């Protein structure tokens, strides 16, 4: 009985994950090689041409998503690191208050925050309107429907996911290690680049993992803040599934996206060990 205990504890949740995470992936793989339409039904024909067709048709959006995801992730690291650093080393007794401030925006729906940005950045909105009437900006200047707006939205929405893991890794850095480096005549910059930064790399890795994947597969920012020239692969998949009901093409695209992501994730997990990443994700 005692030996059965862990299995009984795992069973309900494990079954849920198996039935609704693993099984659907198998179904999606199957759907991705089917042919047909929503009226007459779909039939399994092992049409692997779905993949080649979809990739040929949407490679622009794939590459654009990768570019946006990459740019967004790099910007997020650069913006988040100083914040995490300051909270970890200069936050003092108010560390948890600052962390709470970083997390509080999450209590407003992601969609609602993005819509708020759309209003803030509108052509005659609160930010651009006054600048335009003061003659500081050209009348046709706009931020919405540009690449800047979409990447800005992505960075905005996922920044806390970068701040937290970096903070966690910096918090673990023993200040006496830094003092030791200084005592051994390292300059301030040297102590940072040769001691603090390497110790915080796991946090950066975890943060990259937690932001690159959702940024690259995002479609809400492109839909709300972007224009026709900013369509990401997520928008295409969403349209194929929910508007065109062309499930095979949508499935082939999702599968390709997931394969690329998984390859990246496993490479990262190899470097870090899954437990570390999970722990970072939990904080």
């Amino acid at each position, binding site marked *: 009985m005692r030996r059965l205990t*862990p*299995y009984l*504890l*795992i069973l*309900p*949740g*494990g079954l849920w*994950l198996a039935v609704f*995470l693993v099984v*659907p992936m198998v179904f*999606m793989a199957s*759907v991705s090689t089917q042919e047909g339409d929503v009226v007459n039904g779909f039939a399994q024909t092992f049409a692997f041409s779905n993949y080649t067709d979809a990739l040929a048709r949407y490679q622009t959006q794939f590459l654009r998503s990768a570019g946006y995801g990459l740019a967004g992730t790099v910007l997020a690291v650069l913006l988040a690191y*100083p*914040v995490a650093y*300051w909270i970890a080393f*200069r936050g003092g007794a108010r560390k*948890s208050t600052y962390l*709470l401030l*970083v997390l*509080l*925006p*999450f*209590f407003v*729906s*992601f*969609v*609602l*925050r993005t*819509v*708020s*940005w759309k*209003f*803030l950045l*509108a052509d*005659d*909105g*609160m930010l651009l309107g006054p600048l335009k009437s003061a003659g500081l900006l050209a009348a046709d200047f706009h931020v919405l429907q540009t690449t800047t707006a979409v990447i800005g939205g992505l960075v*905005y929405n996922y*920044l806390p996911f970068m701040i937290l893991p970096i903070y966690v890794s910096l918090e673990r850095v023993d200040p006496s290690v830094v003092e030791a480096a200084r005592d051994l005549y390292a300059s301030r910059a040297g102590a940072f680049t040769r001691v603090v930064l390497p110790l915080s790399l796991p946090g950066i890795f975890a943060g990259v*993992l937690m932001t690159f*994947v*959702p940024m*690259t*597969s995002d479609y*809400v920012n492109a*839909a709300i803040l972007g224009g026709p020239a900013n369509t990401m692969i997520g928008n295409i998949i*969403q349209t194929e*599934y929910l508007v065109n009901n062309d*499930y095979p093409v949508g*499935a082939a695209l*999702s599968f390709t*996206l*997931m394969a690329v*992501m998984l390859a990246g994730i496993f490479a990262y997990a190899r470097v870090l060990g*899954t437990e570390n*990443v*999970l*722990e970072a*994700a*939990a904080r």
Partner: protein
Amino acid sequence: MRTGDRLLRIYVWLVLAWLFAPIIVMIVFGFNDTRSKSNVSWQGFTLAWWGRLDEFPLLTAAVLDSITIALLVTVIATVLGTLMGIALGRHRFRGQAATNLVMFAAISSPELVMGASLLSLFVSMGVETGYWTIVVAHVLFAVSFVAVTVRARVVGLDRSVEEAARDLGATPWVTFWRVTLPMILPGVVAGALLAFALSIDDFVITQFTSGSTTTFPLWIYGAVRIGVPPQVNILGTLIFAAGAAIAVVNSINARRRT
């Protein structure tokens, strides 16, 4: 304080201001005396919208659905996730690595792919999507977060207290309810709050599994093109205030314990 530190502190506050800017806009424009459909420019202060919160029956229904879904998801995910967290933190067993891997996949898979694969399953099986498929999907992503949170608590637990309970004649059942559960409760509560927050805010997976059911985020997304009424701002403000209050109380309690 050195100049560098001072600049760094200003920078941190600028980033925080950036994070809060759209939220302040949301709160303020719930009081905007706007006449047009688009609530974009300031027209003057009014409390009128607070009296007309339920002007849009579909919006009211969407908010109620969001709340009841989040509550259901919280209960299911907390129970399942807590059991998993205990198993993973306490026991060594075959299949542990596989369980960790699947949980890791559930946490790090793109929501888009999870939504698309669930819809593939539902379409293939002829399941009509709606309220209950949303619940199923939300539990799916919430359960791993609860399990990881609880596991972290279980790992740090002093086992000798439970052994003492057993030495004093407590059955495993009594030991669990009177000793283990109270000790891991902070982890369970944190996991439950996380599950609720993730569910009520979710958009992507919900859109794929919702069918004709509409949740609060879905309603807003649908309203963007026609114009978002101030009622949305107020409802968003109320949810934010409730969530923020719980988070603040929770964080003060956590600090008092340590």
